[in-house]
């Protein structure tokens, strides 16, 4: 579960830690007391649902591998902070072979950036020898490819869906179970809630830049895959789409939500933790419909207890986000994973790949999925009762919608487009009279200014 974006405090700690690890790393022996050392870098606080579960999973992997290989020490190097901190810390660690982690866990879009810098080992030969890789859906196999080679293997995927409060729906006289067939159905339900239940947020969808790219992933990008034109980056022309019928449909949805007063409070939407607010607000019946992540359900389980919400499965129902006009299969979601990658400079490639193999075992994949709020990559494990029954009905739906998901463009400039979208939705949320044309102009101007007008494109 991705949680907080970084603060400058984190950044200071990161800088200090990077400095310290650079100093310490320079003298880090590959062999300590006759033992081979394999280093693993991963997020301590951002990826798993809480720090205890991070320790449990990584500690378990370490203990198992050291039991299987008594002459090996698995050295864990947790990274503090949020999404940007993980990328920044890894960028610094990879700069020297002495500090480059043998295995690192990173968000899928980071793999492309790190691989293109030449820091990662292609994994194709190794993957061909494993039993599990063949069972990964093609889209997931290809998500961490760069120039035709695979550099990352997923530990699990996030996708996105609609949560709605059954109690509030009944109170407002809306049908339960609810199956919105189009975006207009969502708006219509929101309007009923707005009229009948004052004080409740009718439609929770993220706007602005509080949670960085997550404000887009759980805002515009929840709808764009189901719009008439989902393209963000045009592979043929190598240009960024800043105006398209799809974007106009999405901004139109935002315009309706915010101009009719159906959105969340600005201070909540613009806060760093906004991507997880519904986990806390839904048990208090403060939100009727939430565009949320697949990990919310697991967070209400007894094991994770972000808050423990025993009635969650009866009250917070889930349904796939529909497409704009109900076109089959009527599912709109992005997928975004956390991958394992191996350093190009690892001194012990064979052992490191064995460790990677262990991390992808059935038990480790399912535990990771349950403890971090993911869908496992292996298409067999998504049907396993251990996974399905951990957080019903959420895990089941997340597995059903996964194959329909599309991924964010992996090039670094995606974050520029994302920031442009953040500015556009901030305006739509904050100034309800902002028109769709104005929002498109904000996005277009931002991307043109940051990159170049020649790198932008209008789709008709």
């Amino acid at each position, binding site marked *: 579960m991705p949680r907080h974006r970084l603060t400058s405090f984190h950044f200071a700690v990161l800088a200090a830690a990077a400095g310290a690890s650079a100093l310490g790393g320079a003298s880090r022996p590959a062999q300590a007391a006759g033992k081979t050392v394999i280093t693993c870098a991963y997020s301590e606080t951002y990826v798993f649902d809480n720090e205890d579960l991070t320790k449990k999973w990584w500690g378990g992997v370490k203990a198992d591998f050291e039991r299987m290989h008594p002459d090996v020490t698995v050295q864990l190097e947790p990274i503090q902070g949020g999404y940007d901190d993980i990328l920044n810390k890894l960028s610094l660690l990879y700069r020297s072979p002495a500090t480059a982690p043998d295995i690192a866990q990173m968000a899928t879009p980071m793999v492309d950036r790190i691989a293109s810098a030449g820091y990662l080992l292609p994994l194709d030969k190794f993957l061909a020898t494993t039993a599990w890789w063949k069972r990964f859906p093609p889209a997931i196999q290809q998500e961490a490819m760069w120039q035709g080679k695979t550099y990352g293997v997923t530990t699990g995927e996030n996708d996105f869906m609609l949560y709605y409060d059954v109690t509030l729906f009944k109170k407002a006289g809306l049908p339960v179970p609810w199956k919105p067939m189009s975006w207009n159905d969502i708006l219509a339900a929101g309007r009923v809630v707005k009229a009948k239940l004052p004080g409740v947020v009718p439609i929770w969808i993220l706007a602005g830049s*509080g949670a960085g790219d997550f404000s887009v992933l759980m805002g515009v990008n929840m709808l764009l895959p189901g719009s008439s034109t989902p393209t963000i980056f045009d592979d043929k022309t190598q240009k960024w789409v800043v105006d398209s019928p799809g974007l106009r449909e999405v901004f139109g949805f935002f315009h309706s939500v915010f101009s009719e007063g159906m959105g969340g409070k600005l201070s909540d939407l613009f806060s760093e933790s906004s991507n997880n607010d519904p986990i806390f607000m839904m048990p208090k019946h403060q939100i009727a419909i939430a565009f949320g992540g697949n990990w919310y359900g697991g967070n209400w389980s007894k094991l994770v207890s972000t808050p423990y919400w025993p009635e969650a499965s009866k009250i917070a129902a889930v349904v796939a986000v529909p497409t704009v006009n109900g076109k089959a299969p009527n599912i709109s979601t992005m997928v975004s994973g956390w991958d394992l990658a191996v350093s190009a400079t690892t001194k012990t490639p064979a052992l490191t790949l064995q460790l990677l193999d262990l991390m992808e075992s059935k038990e480790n994949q399912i535990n990771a999925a349950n403890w971090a709020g993911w869908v496992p990559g292996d298409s067999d494990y998504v049907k396993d009762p251990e996974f399905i029954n951990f957080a019903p009905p959420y895990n089941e739906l997340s597995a059903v919608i996964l194959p329909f998901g599309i991924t964010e463009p992996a090039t670094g400039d995606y974050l520029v487009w994302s920031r442009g979208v953040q500015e556009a939705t901030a305006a739509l949320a904050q100034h309800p009279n902002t028109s769709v044309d104005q929002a498109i102009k904000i996005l277009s101007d931002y991307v043109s200014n940051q990159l170049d007008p020649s790198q932008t494109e209008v789709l008709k």
Partner: protein
Amino acid sequence: MKGDVAERPDGVAFLLLLPTAILLLGLFVGPVLYAFYLGLTNIALMGPTARHFHFTGMANLHRLARDSLFWESLKLTAIFVAASAIVGVTVVGMALAVLIQHAVAWLRAAVGAIVVVAWMLPPLTAALIWYAFSTSGGTLSLLGGSSRLDVLDSFPMTVVCLANIWATAGFSMLVLSAGLRSVPTEVLEAGRMEGASRWRVFCFLTLPIMKPTIVTNILLVTLLSLGNFSLIYIMTGGGPGNATDILPIYSYQQALVFGKLGYGALLGDVVVIIATIFAYLYVRMSRTTRMAAA
């Protein structure tokens, strides 16, 4: 009075200054020059140019010239610094200093302590206090009668300026209090004897006498505010939109969010140049003050 030492440098003085000079060159001048070089390269945090970056001549400067966000950011920086440094120093700092001078001893001690504590707080704490104070559901919205009242997002620049003034007023108060105490009482008494009101004495005697202190203080607070990344980053992250995107934040965003280290470094260089100008003015001002005093 000219210093003899400056005209005839001797070997011992040179030797004694050498360690400091080496430290300054190695830890300050060197990195700054390197940052200027990086500002003219295409170095990226990640991607193909992370390791194999090269000098790109004027490319980044051309981009800077037509980057409307940079110019907007420069304007926001000027507003933030001017509002914080000038208003914060001349109005709040001076008002506190004058009030404290005329207050009874216990009140002077209490107010002085509170203001200085505010100044001593780490930027993180000050930012969190102001965030909690001004966001919806915070103290200000409760005082305003509606928990939905969101002062921070409605008037972001005003709130971050107030927060910065709040956090630096203690420093100004200390400096200006010292300045006030150094105003010769006989001059003020002479003014009073001539029949000038308290206000006129303050405007036409105290302020002109304190001018060097005030200017020095403005310059110092300007420098402090120019580099105040943490306060705004924690409170608004430069937003909403670009409403509080001052140069240090924009530079951070380019370098460590978009991964464009080269362009980020160039933006940082602009901050260095602006700070250098203010630092030069500060040094010049304090030298003139010292010479005038001598």
